[in-house]
């Protein structure tokens, strides 16, 4: 199991569109992937789960992955956050 702290950079935070991109990406990996924020832990493959976090710009969340492709998963998801979910130029 590996973990990574990740800050949210996009203006709108984990809103519906960003959450959809995130869960879509997470579903490409076989590892179990979780997002942890404010003592809440949700499955990154669940769109509605991500929405319940209501995490916004500037917040820091914890990414957690366990499974064969955990390294790649954390890397790819971290990239998506860093790219601001491809929302802003």
């Amino acid at each position: 199991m590996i973990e990574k702290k990740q800050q949210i950079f996009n203006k709108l935070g984990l809103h519906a569109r960003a959450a959809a991109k995130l869960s879509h990406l997470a579903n490409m990996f076989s590892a179990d992937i979780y997002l942890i924020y404010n003592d809440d832990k949700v499955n990154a493959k669940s769109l509605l789960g991500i929405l319940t976090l209501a995490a916004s710009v500037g917040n820091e969340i914890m990414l957690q992955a366990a499974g064969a492709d955990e390294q790649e998963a954390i890397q790819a998801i971290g990239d998506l956050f860093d790219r601001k979910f491809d929302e802003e130029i």
Partner: protein
Amino acid sequence: MAKDVKGIQLSRVRELNQLKITRVFNEKWLPNLVKHPRPQRPGLGLTGYLKHIQDGRIQIFGKTEAGYLSNLKEGETGRCLKNYFSLKLPGVIVAENIEPAAEWIAMAARYSTPILVSALHTAPLISRLSAYLYQYFSKKIKLNGVLMDVMGQGVLITGASGIGKSETALELVNKGYQLIADDVAEFYIDSNDDLVGRANEAIKNLMEVRGLGIININDIFGASAVLEEKKLNLVINLEKWDAKKKYDRLGEDNQCFKILGLEVPLLTLPVGPGRNLSTIIEVALRNFLAKKSGRPTYLEACQTASAPPPGNREGAGGEAT
């Protein structure tokens, strides 16, 4: 009770419509913290027996307290109230729209205690208040799955991502049952020690169905297709059919799902081609209700009667000849 919860401000309690608060005195201290889920009636506390009056509990005055205080001799009331309010209680709610005497308000103000007046009788006031506070103070846990009301029972459908939880739930909604929460349900323990689940505000009434996106069940099916919260009675775990695994063939497994120190019956349903899950779940609920009402299961019926089980061929032997 979770110890890390610091408390809830009385101002939030005041905003609860169900408490029918009509007036507030000493408003300045509404930010006082309530730290306990059970409201308290002072009773003998007013006579000077203060041992069990606990800090952090909302105090409820009814006709008894008001009557006692108004029947005291002059001077006595002040002394009683001084001892009582000096405990720095978070706040007092007076029931039945009883007008608090000026002396109470003044003494409460001295010890920074707000006084609220409710139109409710004491019993409903206490039960509504404690129902709210229990939910607030209870340990909470999020579980992955769809929470539904099927035949009046709270059912949590769990299983791996993509196994078809939401699709099964959608079929159940289409059959007339109610959705409480899709994907993630939040549970707390209420004052009856029951596990109660509800949806996070952000995803209330919503369901995600691959191919359709996020749909609002309340908009599409109407208000009768959704519920605010529901006590959990049964967990149904969907899993991929595994030819090597032994599934319950006789209905004798009694599995349990453990959560927050409570146990909930658990049923595992294998998912395979040709298995209509919503119908199986409906029948599972009928079976669950029958067991709950005390009807013997097929196996129990076989064991109690020494005669061959009902439906056994030997029973119909006469016809065969």
